[in-house]
């Protein structure tokens, strides 16, 4: 009897031990939403039902240092809706000036950047070569180029500069594609819509192109499109150097003759030849990878390079795109966010081509139920290996009525992938609590160091909820180095520059880019986690003109400003 009791007790203890072992640990602190206490009280205007496709796609966000004080400011786009379309003041995009210490001030009205209409995306760059960062806002109807007047105010010069565009623009990014020393501008465009003849919700006119009805989703009436609606071509504007840009899309071979539904864009040098190439994500259609031919023209190599579609040849609903060196190989990989029941594609750069390693890297499965948008590579724990973050949210509020299929509901969680340093990632969002697991309808996401403490923070623009300012409060992170490049001439941000940092066994590469994530703009400064290394043995900058700057034995834990000679 005694033995039996002892055995029972042991069994019970075992059970208790098991229960203890399985109880979920309290979430660790990584990112804390400090938006309200920081003074960022932005909420995107939203129509409740999203009866029209234009009401589901906005939400760009930019990190920029518009006043040159070394602190990254925030600009969030806001868009009109069909109901408010006749009131241009109804939607207010907001510029927040960074006062330091995670305090921000709404300077929109003074700056004059509050009402760019149906604003969608945003990118930054010095369009007029005066050394100050300008803001370009894409939207429906026309785009805005806010020239920085260097006194805290901006002036829209889009019309006179020739970049007001037309139709429905989404992504944008500056790059000096012909290396003439001036920043050019690419703009992706999405769907052709006529505000006076909108397709009827749930019924619409969405027939054509062999695609069939587009206004139902699993038997539920939803907004029409994009399928069944005509697409729009993309624009490349060449900087003529006289304050004006010339539209050269067709001549340059990036005019999108198929009129695919363009969204995210990424300027980056995929093959390391020193010339900016261009990646464009297209919703439900093949993505483009335009290889720079070094003569002012491009050639679409998306298919042979293996980045146009998914591994099994399916066209995915591609939204955002991140560029990063997650393998520390010195080659830029692409991470593309996609629609629900598709997977976020991680394309590893193998030099001359890419390999879709989405499943092998273990990034794909968690993304399958989600519609994902803003995304970035970021080293959130400063261990020297780039991790990944992506935000989600469906386009149809009616998703909550849909009972079948693998899709999640309308509001969706974020994903955070920790780099395992072996080509794979572990999805760790649940370890870090409600900031990640709360269900939201997010769009733009950007990363940058808002308080210059060496830890990468995150800002998210939500379509149906307040914007988030996510402060990185992870304790015990490694050493770091932030590299701020000052280019010369008409490219003061040094877009197209490549920075490599070597520290101990780490060799990390970053690309300075305009137009990132989903229709957004990351902090242009380059962040490097150094792990246990208290200094970088080498910081090497390859400038856009292919000259290089080498700095040796750079102490860690600082913002390093490097000026182009």
């Amino acid at each position, binding site marked *: 009897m005694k033995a039996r009791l002892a055995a029972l007790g042991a069994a019970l203890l075992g059970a208790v031990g098991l229960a203890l072992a399985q109880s979920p640990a309290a979430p660790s602190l990584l990112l804390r939403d400090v938006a309200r206490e920081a003074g960022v009280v932005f909420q995107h205007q939203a129509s409740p039902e999203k009866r029209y496709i234009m009401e589901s796609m906005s939400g760009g966000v930019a990190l920029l240092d518009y006043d040159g004080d070394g602190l990254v400011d925030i600009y969030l786009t806001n868009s009109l809706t069909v109901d408010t379309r006749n009131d241009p003041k109804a939607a207010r995009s907001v510029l927040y000036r960074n006062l330091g210490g995670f305090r921000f001030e709404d300077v929109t009205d003074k700056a004059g950047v509050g009402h760019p209409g149906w604003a969608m995306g945003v990118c930054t760059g010095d369009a007029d070569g005066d050394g100050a960062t300008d803001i370009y806002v894409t939207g429906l109807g026309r785009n805005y180029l806010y020239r920085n007047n260097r006194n805290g105010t901006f002036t829209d010069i889009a019309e006179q500069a020739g970049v007001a565009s037309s139709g429905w623009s989404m992504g944008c990014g500056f790059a000096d594609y012909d290396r003439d020393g001036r920043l050019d501008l690419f703009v992706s465009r999405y769907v052709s819509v006529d505000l006076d003849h909108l397709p009827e919700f749930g019924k619409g006119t969405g027939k054509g192109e*062999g*695609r*069939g*009805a*587009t*206004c*139902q*989703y*699993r*038997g539920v009436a939803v907004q029409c499109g*994009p*399928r*069944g609606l005509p697409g729009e071509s993309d624009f490349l504007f060449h900087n003529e150097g006289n304050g004006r840009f010339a539209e050269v899309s067709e001549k340059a071979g990036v005019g999108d003759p198929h009129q695919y539904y363009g969204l995210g864009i990424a300027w980056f040098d995929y093959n390391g030849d020193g010339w900016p190439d261009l990646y464009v994500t297209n*919703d*439900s259609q093949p993505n483009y990878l335009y290889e720079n031919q070094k003569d002012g023209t491009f050639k679409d190599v998306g*298919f*042979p*390079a*293996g980045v146009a*579609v*998914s*591994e*099994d*040849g*399916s*066209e995915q*609903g591609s939204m955002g795109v991140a560029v990063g060196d997650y393998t520390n190989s010195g080659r830029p990989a692409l991470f593309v966010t996609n*629609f629900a*029941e598709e*997977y976020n594609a991680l394309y590893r750069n193998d030099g*001359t*081509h890419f*390999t879709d*390693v989405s*499943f*092998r*890297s*273990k990034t*794909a*499965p968690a993304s*399958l139920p989600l519609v994902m948008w803003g995304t970035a590579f970021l080293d959130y724990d400063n261990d020297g290996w780039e991790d990944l973050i992506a935000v989600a949210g469906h386009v149809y509020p009616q998703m909550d009525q*849909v009972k*079948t*299929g*693998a*899709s999640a509901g309308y509001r969706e969680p974020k994903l955070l992938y920790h780099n395992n340093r072996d080509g794979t990632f572990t999805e760790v969002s649940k370890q870090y609590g409600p900031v990640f697991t709360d269900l939201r309808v997010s769009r733009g996401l950007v990363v940058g160091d808002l308080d210059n403490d060496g830890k990468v923070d995150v800002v998210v623009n939500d379509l149906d909820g307040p914007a988030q300012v996510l402060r990185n409060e992870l304790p015990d992170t490694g050493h770091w180095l932030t590299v701020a490049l000052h280019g010369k001439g008409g490219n003061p941000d040094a877009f197209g520059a490549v920075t490599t940092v070597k520290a101990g066994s780490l060799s990390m590469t970053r690309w300075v880019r305009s137009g990132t994530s989903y229709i957004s703009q990351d902090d242009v400064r380059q962040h490097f986690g150094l792990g246990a290394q208290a200094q970088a043995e080498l910081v090497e900058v390859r400038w856009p003109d292919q000259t290089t700057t080498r700095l040796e034995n750079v102490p860690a834990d600082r913002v390093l400003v490097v000026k182009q000679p």
Partner: protein
Amino acid sequence: MRTGATALALLLVPALAAPQATPPPAAPRPPDLGAIVAQIEKGDAAGAERQLRRIIASSGDPAARQLLARLCFDQKRDAEAIVELRKAALAGPLPRDLGLRLARAEIADGHLALAEQQLRAVARRYQSVQVLMELARLQTRQKDAEGALASLEKARALAPNSEDVLNAYAQVSLSLRAPMPALQVLEPLARMCPTVAQYHYMLGVALMQVGDVRASTAPLREADRLEPDRPFTLIALGLVLNTQRMYGEAKPYLLRALDLEPDNVEAVAALAESEQGLGELEAAETHALRAVARVSDHAIGNFALGMVRMQQERYEEACAALERALVADPASPKAPYQLSLAWARRGDEAQSKKYLEIYRQRVREIDMRLEQVRAKTGISGGMQR
């Protein structure tokens, strides 16, 4: 014996009554078979048979042959009965039951054309759902897809809510890889009979056949829930989940299918595909090789092997395997897409472009097929974006 004889008689009456009501003017007077039926009912089968044989010998009367055939059937002398029925059928249409028995005998003897002829005659005369279904089965066996579906369409017109007819219609459609007609009946059938696993399974298969794999998952899961551990369902689930790249979910179904049927090549090949998707290259290679060793032109097995070779950067071997996959499943865009990549990596732009064009054509065909399905059935996989 008594019961059988009574049944014989009952069956005989209407057949006899018809010619008596409207005798053809020039025809000889028919023999009085009623007396012979009475004789049978009294139990004098032998005497009745003697009389019938006399009548047949003298006039070849088809009604007498039919009655003799019934007598033979009743006495388990089927071969003799069939001989008489064949001769009777030459003279005119047989009653429904005898026509069916003759048709079945002809099928058993391999005389499929004669059987079809008989069934068509009976079907024409009696508008019988049962006969139409038999005819459809025979036509299916003869690979006459359109004929089978036409027969079952007639059966559906006669019995639009008959579960048996709808089931047969769906089965014939699916066996002939004609999923569109199947979908039209399976969706309501699965709704009308929600606890029948088979209907959910067939609905899933039909949706797979038209390429709407997303929509096929739910009915297959339901079939598995209603009737677990059925290898076909498990394999189908594995296949559709693989197609949706849900490799981690597909793998347990396929492993279970292999527990139940260790040599099932479909399960082995699909498992290789799951493993390849999950990055388990060694296991994927082993299973893919095992599948193609069993069936050298296996589409999925070769595709999985091709993908493994792509990852190993053994592009020449990848091309060979993917080429076999393309031949085995020419409608799929997957193999031509990967072939376009493989050739690009081998530096042959012309070949790469060739396969890219094939891929694009396949994508267009799938889009068109899906739209047709959705337009006709209203079933939507939900992917309108």
